[in-house]
């Protein structure tokens, strides 16, 4: 009897052990993600409908859609939305163009390529706060060379920082972001380039295709999926990337460089208004989700047509 129970129980326990094994391996990661990312995320969504100010002990009440009504008329938020488009679009486009050129250059074999590659990718290793400070100093008219070069080129009349010029300030963080982010595109595209079979080029050359024709009909089609996914992911990432702006301009002058992500940070960190910050964050989340959904839908309709 006992032997029978044991023989029936063991397979069950074994099956249980086998079924739970992957969960045991992934449990630490899942617990961390749920406790430190999902719980605050849900809490943050609830803050968007509450009045939460850190310095006011009587705050915490439910205010419904009050924050969103305030957002609808918030001029700073509208500026930040436009700035986010501008910051993300310019950064991604310039990073992509130069990243692609760099990847094509590094894809040619030459002596010392390994060293050249390491040097080209070095900016990516520089911490973002240091990148921001470094570029702010380069634009500084007292200790930085750039304003003096602009004067020498006739672009400026007297050396001054573009970071304090409302019309030009956004180009400061964009320049820093481009310098820092080109390696990312170059590395990803270089990996994709190296996966293209070499004999395709040889066959095309024998058939008399010139370099431009080979680039158009072999390189680009092979790179297209990598380009699409990298640009999509980078767009989301860069629109959330507030470090350089917080360090270089803090959103100024007069909110001209404030993007939505840095506006959330400033509202939470300087004004300590957690409720309003969470409301802005919720809007940003919805916008980013909409963007991703649109891309997925576009891709599917393309696939159907193809």
């Amino acid at each position, binding site marked *: 009897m006992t032997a029978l129970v044991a023989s029936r129980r063991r397979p069950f326990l074994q099956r249980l052990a086998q079924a739970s094994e*992957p969960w045991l391996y992934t449990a630490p990661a899942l617990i961390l993600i749920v406790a430190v*990312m999902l719980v605050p995320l849900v809490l943050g969504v609830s*803050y968007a409908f509450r009045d939460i100010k850190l310095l006011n002990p009587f705050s915490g009440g439910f205010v419904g859609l009050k924050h969103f009504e305030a957002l609808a008329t918030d001029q700073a938020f509208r500026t930040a939305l436009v700035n986010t488009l501008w910051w993300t679009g310019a950064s991604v486009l310039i990073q992509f163009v130069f990243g692609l050129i760099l990847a094509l250059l590094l894809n040619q074999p030459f002596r010392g390529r390994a060293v050249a590659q390491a040097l080209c990718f070095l900016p990516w290793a*520089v911490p*973002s706060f240091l990148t921001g400070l470094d570029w702010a*100093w380069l634009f500084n008219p*007292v200790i930085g060379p750039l304003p003096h070069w602009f004067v020498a080129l006739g672009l400026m009349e007297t050396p001054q920082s573009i970071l304090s010029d409302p019309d030009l300030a956004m180009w400061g963080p964009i320049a820093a972001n481009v310098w820092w982010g080109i390696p990312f595109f170059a590395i990803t595209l270089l990996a994709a380039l190296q996966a293209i079979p070499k004999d395709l080029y040889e066959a095309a050359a024998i058939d008399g295709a010139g370099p431009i024709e080979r680039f158009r009909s072999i390189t680009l089609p092979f790179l297209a999926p990598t380009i699409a996914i990298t640009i999509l992911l980078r767009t989301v990432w860069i629109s959330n990337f507030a470090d350089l702006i*917080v360090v270089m301009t803090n959103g100024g002058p007069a909110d001209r460089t404030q993007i939505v992500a840095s506006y959330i940070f400033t509202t939470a960190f300087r004004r300590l208004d957690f409720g309003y910050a969470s409301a802005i964050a919720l809007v940003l989340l919805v916008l980013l989700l909409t963007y991703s959904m649109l891309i997925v839908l576009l891709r599917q309709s393309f696939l159907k047509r193809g």
Partner: protein
Amino acid sequence: MRRNPVLTVLHRLAIGLYIAFALFPLYWLLKVSVTPNDLLYSEGVRMWPSRTSFEHYAFVIANSEFPRFFLNSFIVSGSTAVIVTLVAAVAGYALSRFAFRGKYWITALMLLTQMFPLVMLIAPMFKILSPLGLTNSLTGLIVVYTAFNVPFATFLMQSFFDGIPRDLEEAAMIDGATRFVAFRQIILPLTLPGIAATLGFVFTAAWSELLFALMLISGNAAATFPVGLLSFVSKFSVDFGQMMAAGILALIPAALFFLLIQRYLVQGLTAGAVKG
């Protein structure tokens, strides 16, 4: 293929130009950090000062709070890197080797965490950690950074495990080893390069993190390097030489880890293409 010599020269020229563009901002950091104070303004735009000195480095190391910030950053980044790598190794192994029902959802969840704006967690995170006594503490930062880096590190480790043939641990399991023993004694040693790369990626990410450190830390005792450097910048009298000397010091660990991981950059960035 024969090459046009003009094209070859243009190619080398373009590479050289890009390297100059990539290195110039770092060169300038170094240049100002060794310029003595009396020459800082008079020789502001010279390519190299007529006289160099290490006075800024000496001052920063002996008389400022930077050694403490450096140590704090090192403790936070080092602990984060070790814990994340352990957690990501087992999770990445599970995603690489097991076929189970929740796998799709776990992968989706981890991808999702890479897509939403982390900045929206800043306020609720502060509210959660504050009553636990984890604001203004290195432990709090380690917990936060660990969770943020686990998804990316898991994908990275998974890609390394995918490159190791399954036969190895299956043979060991036929010989009577449990799966965990096979994993620890046969598979892990083979993934050592992957483990080093993951350590490097996570260390660099934690070393660079700015916004959560600014929010969660106030005061110098638990300040990490970026927090210390930024509070230094916003002080009334700015000493550019000292700031840049401190900046160069902050760059050293990041550059060392870059050398460690640069062979794996392609694999790492492809695995976690979502992260910077």
